[in-house]
């Protein structure tokens, strides 16, 4: 492979924010994304919104998947969105939320700029396909 051959790889940040110790789902998704050929950066547990922003900006990820099972999405997601905007990273990052999100809140999150919300029962293939279809052009 020559130097000029382009090698685009989809980069994802799988993030756990706030006081939420349930990371099985995040692990499973990280693994599925890896097996789909994506590069996955996993944040680890109990991250502050600023940390997620820092990671998303520096790693220049195409996809930011936030996993929240604590019910604090209404507080945490806006903070992340603000942070991404501060660093000009909001426009070209595909924002996904996974977890237990009531329907009303889902609409609010989408109004904020979240592209899709995946609740219990969402399939891996569905998610991977969604990412492939909607990954921002750069």
């Amino acid at each position, binding site marked *: *492979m*020559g*130097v*000029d*051959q*382009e*090698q*685009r*790889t989809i*980069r994802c940040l799988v993030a756990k924010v706030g006081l939420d110790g349930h990371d099985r789902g995040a692990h499973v998704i*990280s*693994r599925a*994304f*890896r*097996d*789909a*050929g*994506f*590069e*996955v*950066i*996993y*944040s*680890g547990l109990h991250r*502050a919104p*600023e*940390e997620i922003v*820092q*990671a998303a*900006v*520096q*790693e*220049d990820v195409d996809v930011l998947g936030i996993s929240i099972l604590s019910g604090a999405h209404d507080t945490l997601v806006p903070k992340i969105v603000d942070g991404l905007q501060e*660093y*000009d*990273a909001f426009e070209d990052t595909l924002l996904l939320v996974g977890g237990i999100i009531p329907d009303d809140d889902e609409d609010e999150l989408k109004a904020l700029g979240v592209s899709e919300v995946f609740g219990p029962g969402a399939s891996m293939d569905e998610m991977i396909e969604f990412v492939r279809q909607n990954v921002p052009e*750069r």
Partner: protein
Amino acid sequence: MSGNLIDELLAGKHRALARTITKIENRQAGYRELVSQLHEHTGDADVIGITGSPGAGKSTLVDKMAAAYREQGLTVGVIAIDPSSPFTGGAVLGDRIRMGSNVGDMEVFFRSMSARGTLGGLSTATTDAVKALDAFGKDKIIIETVGAGQNEIDIVKTADTVGVLVPPGSGDDVQMLKAGILEIADLFIVNKADLDGADRTVQELKEMLEYRDGGVPATVGHHGAAGSGDGFEQPESGDPPEQRWHPPIVETVANKGEGVDDVLEVLADHREHLADSGELAEQERMRYAEEIRTLLQEDVRGLLEQEIDRQGGLDAYVGRVRSKEIDPYAVSDELLEPIAECLEQREE
């Protein structure tokens, strides 16, 4: 933010730096011009390579080092390289999890990179990413990678100073180090020094270094070893002893932050040594030469791949090789012939 990416990077915009590294990694159209433009702005950063076996504590140490540099008022860039799957190309890049001491501090720019399956490509991408961080104005740049093979060795060779982490109780690993990592280490870090076996590992490393320096360790045999007081003979020839750098062994407990200041001190000493002995300039010369060679190899390979495609791919040749009509050397000669001819004509 496409046209003036370089300007934005030089102006200190994090997003521009991140995007530049992405373009470098993806080898996106125009990345060569980008790196060319970066070149004149580089040369101010200290580049440190940290390598060691998986689980040795590299990420934890790098995190603590970054925090210590920040306390000194310096800015830090980190490139952490993890392997990727040779089958899907996918990877989970986990080094970031350990960066707990630099939460929300944007002056520590941490970037995870995966090996993406290409051999020479990774060291080129790493070198270029280091240039981006250097041009951005980072004072210290740390490259972190698993020291598993030649590929990784090539990567850390792009650093001014290389630290090799050796966890205690890795007797066999120490043996393995002889193969190449030993030669590139400017310091050894025995991490997890609070574990049993740390003393022994330090001792083993000491012996190995003494052998390398051409002496015989005092601990070996009853005869011979009639050399100097410090237990081994200095070779008479070669550089004067004070000009040579002897890799120190530092003990750390990275997760508690113990010994991190010692590591920083040795790194500073080594930097000073490089500058005083003139090695820094020599290193730089060799590195650029190496960089040019690697680039040439990759570029020529790229040209050849195109030529092979034009000739209808390798399959036809492979078929003829299988049926013994032609042999692999002849195929290579045939494909290279136009290039060889071209070069001959230039000579005339």
